[in-house]
C-alpha cells in the first residue's frame, strides 16, 4: 500500500567523475522521490547512470566522484551535509542495499550467520543470542527452510537463488525503511528470478518499506513497479506510473525501448523488432540540449537548447520538446 509519507527525497542530484580524459557527467540533475510502501523502478541501459545513482544515495561513491544536490533528505533528515558518522549509522540500518552478484557480495570467508548478525550487533548493540534469533527469523521470512542450520554454512555451499535470499535477509536485519536493490535478479536463472522478485514484492507489502529497484529489464519494471523513472545518459527522461509509461510512453527513447522487446503472442515471430539507431553520446564535456537528439527521429533545431519538462496529471512527466500531442508547440 503506497502511503503519502516521503521516505527519500532527492532533487537536483548531479554526480561528476574525474577521469584522465575529462570530467564524466554521469548523473545530471535528477530527482527521485519515494514514498513509504512504494516501489520505484529506475530503468535504463548500460551507461545511463542508474548504478551510480543508487551508490550515491547510499554514500558509496568512488573517491573520484563529486556529488551535488539541491535536496537530499531521508525521512526528513538532511543527508547532503550529514557527517560520515551519521551516514555510517544509517547505512545498513535504516537504509539497506542489495547488489547484483550474490556470489561477490557475500564474503566467502565467513559463515552466513556471522554476516547476518554483524550489522545487527553493531547498529542495535544486540547480544549474540538476540542477533541469532533475529537472523533465524529473517531467514525463515525469506523462505529458507532449516534456518538454524543454515547459519553455520558458508556462501559457497548455497545456490545463487539461496544466496540472494540471504542477501535480502541481511538487508532486512535492522529493519530498514528504504531498500535499494541494484539488479537483484539479473544474475539469476529465469525461474529463480521470478521467485526473488515475488519475495521482494511480498516483503515490501508486509513491512511497508520504500523500495528503489534498479534494472535494465522492462519486464521486471512492468510487473513490480508502482512508479518508473527512465534514465538515459545521466538524466531521467521520463517518469510516471507503470501503467502510464507502458500504455502511453511519451519520450521517444521510452517508446523506442518498448518497441525493441519481443513479446510472445504480441510481436510477430520472425518480424522486425523496433530499434534505436546510433550509440549513447559521450558524457564528457558540455552537454547542451537533449542527449537523445542524435538518435531521435523527431529531432529538430530546438532540441539543442534547454529542453522543457512536460507533465500530465496525475504525475507522468517527460523531458522533450514535444508535448503529449506530439506537437512542439510554444510553452509547456
Amino acid at each position: 500500500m503506497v502511503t503519502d509519507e516521503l521516505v527519500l527525497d532527492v532533487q537536483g542530484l548531479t554526480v561528476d567523475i574525474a577521469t584522465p580524459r575529462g570530467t564524466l557527467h554521469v548523473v545530471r540533475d535528477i530527482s527521485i522521490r519515494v514514498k513509504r510502501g512504494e516501489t520505484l523502478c529506475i530503468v535504463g541501459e548500460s551507461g545511463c547512470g542508474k548504478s551510480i545513482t543508487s551508490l550515491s544515495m547510499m554514500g558509496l561513491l568512488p573517491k573520484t566522484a563529486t556529488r551535488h544536490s539541491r535536496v537530499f533528505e531521508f525521512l526528513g533528515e538532511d543527508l547532503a551535509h550529514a557527517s560520515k558518522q551519521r551516514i555510517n549509522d544509517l547505512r545498513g540500518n535504516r537504509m539497506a542495499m542489495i547488489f547484483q552478484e550474490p556470489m561477490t557480495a557475500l564474503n566467502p570467508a565467513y559463515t552466513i550467520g556471522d554476516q547476518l548478525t554483524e550489522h545487527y550487533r553493531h547498529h542495535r548493540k544486540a547480544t549474540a543470542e538476540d542477533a541469532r534469533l533475529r537472523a533465524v527469523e529473517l531467514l525463515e521470512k525469506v523462505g529458507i527452510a532449516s534456518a538454524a542450520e543454515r547459519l553455520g554454512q558458508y556462501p559457497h555451499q548455497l545456490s545463487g537463488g539461496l544466496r540472494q535470499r540471504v542477501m535480502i535477509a541481511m538487508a532486512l536485519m535492522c529493519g530498514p525503511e528504504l531498500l535499494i536493490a541494484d539488479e537483484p535478479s539479473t544474475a539469476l536463472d529465469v525461474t529463480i528470478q521470478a521467485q526473488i522478485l515475488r519475495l521482494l514484492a511480498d516483503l515490501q507489502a508486509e513491512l511497508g518499506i520504500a523500495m528503489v529497484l534498479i534494472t535494465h529489464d522492462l519486464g521486471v519494471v512492468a510487473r513490480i513497479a508502482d512508479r518508473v523513472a527512465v534514465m538515459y545518459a545521466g538524466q531521467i527522461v521520463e517518469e510516471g506510473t507503470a501503467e502510464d509509461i507502458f500504455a502511453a510512453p511519451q519520450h521517444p527513447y521510452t517508446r523506442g525501448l518498448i518497441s525493441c522487446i519481443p513479446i510472445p503472442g504480441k510481436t510477430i515471430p520472425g518480424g522486425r523488432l523496433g530499434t534505436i539507431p546510433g550509440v549513447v553520446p559521450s558524457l564528457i564535456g558540455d552537454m547542451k540540449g537533449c542527449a537523445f537528439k542524435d538518435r531521435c527521429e523527431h529531432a529538430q533545431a530546438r532540441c539543442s537548447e534547454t529542453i522543457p519538462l512536460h507533465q500530465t496529471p496525475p504525475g507522468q512527466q517527460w523531458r522533450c520538446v514535444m508535448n503529449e500531442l506530439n506537437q512542439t508547440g510554444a510553452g509547456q
Partner: protein
Amino acid sequence: MTALIETRDLQRTFSVSVGMFKPRQTLHAVNGVDLSVQRKDVLGIVGESGCGKSTLARMLLGLTPPSRGSVLIDGQDISKIDRRDLARRVQPIFQDPYSSLNPRRTIASIVSFPLDVVGVGTKSERRKKAIEMLERVGLPARYADNTPGQLSGGQRQRVAIARALVINPEIVICDEPTSALDVSVQAQILNLLLDLRKEFNLTYVFISHNLAVVEHIATQVAVMYLGRVVEQTQTAELFKHPRHPYTQALLASVLTPEPGLGIPDMGLGLSFPDPLHPPTGCSFHPRCQQRRPECSVDHPHLLRDAQGEVACHLYPARS
C-alpha cells in the same frame, strides 16, 4: 528428408573434483539428447544453468568430443570430418562480445581468419571478402583496422557474426548471442540475424535462456533440463500448449513488459537443479507441482507424437 544437423543419444560426462579428500564425482552434463534440425530451420534450445546447453553447443561445433552418441551433419558423423571441412559447414557465434574477439588483432584480420586457415584466395582477396562481410553486417569499412577494444558490445557482436559467415557455412550455432547486450542492441542483432538467414539460406541452432527472444526467432524449440530434452515441438505449439510442467513454469516466469499482471507464483519450491546430484527418477520431480509417486522412481520415456516430443509421466509413452 535427412536432417541437416542431428544428434543421436548424445552424452557428455565430466569427472569433477569436489574437495581435497573426496573422490571425484561424475557430472552428466548432457545425458542422452536426440535433436534433428532441417535445412533452413531455426532450432531454439532453452534451459537454465546446469541444463547442459553450452556443452551441447560445443559438441555441435566439434570442439568437445561426446562421451557417447554422435553428431551428424547430412548423415555424416562429424568426428570423421576433417576439421577444416567441418569449419566450412558449421560456425559459432558466442555470448560474450568481450572475450570472443582476440584483443591483439585488427577487425579485418579477425574476420578473415577462417578464410586464412582454409587458404581461400590471396591475402588481399581474403581481406576484401572480410570487409564486404563487415559492411553487410552493418559495420563500415573504416573499422577494418581498429582493434576490438575500440568497439562497443553491439559492434563486436557484429564482427563475430561477420567472422562466422565469411566462410559461407550452412549452419550457425548461436550460443546466447544477445544475452550480454543492451535491449536496443539486442533488437538490432536479432533483426540482422533474421535478415542474414534469409539472404544466405542459413540454418541456426539458437541457444538462449530468454524465451521471448527464442519465440521470436525459432521455428522449433527444445527445452532442456539437467542434461535432457524434456520437451520439443514447433514454436507456436510450445507457447500455446506447453505440456511438460517445467516448460509451463518457464513460460510463466517470462516477465513481459505488460503492467498489471504481477509476478506469478509457480510453486517451484526452493530446491535448485544440481547437475552433480540429480534427483532419482524424473530429474524435475522435486520442483514439480504435478508430481506423482512414479516420478521419483522411474525415469520418464520420451513420447513422440504429432504434437512433438515430451518426456513426462503425465504423457506416458507406449512401450
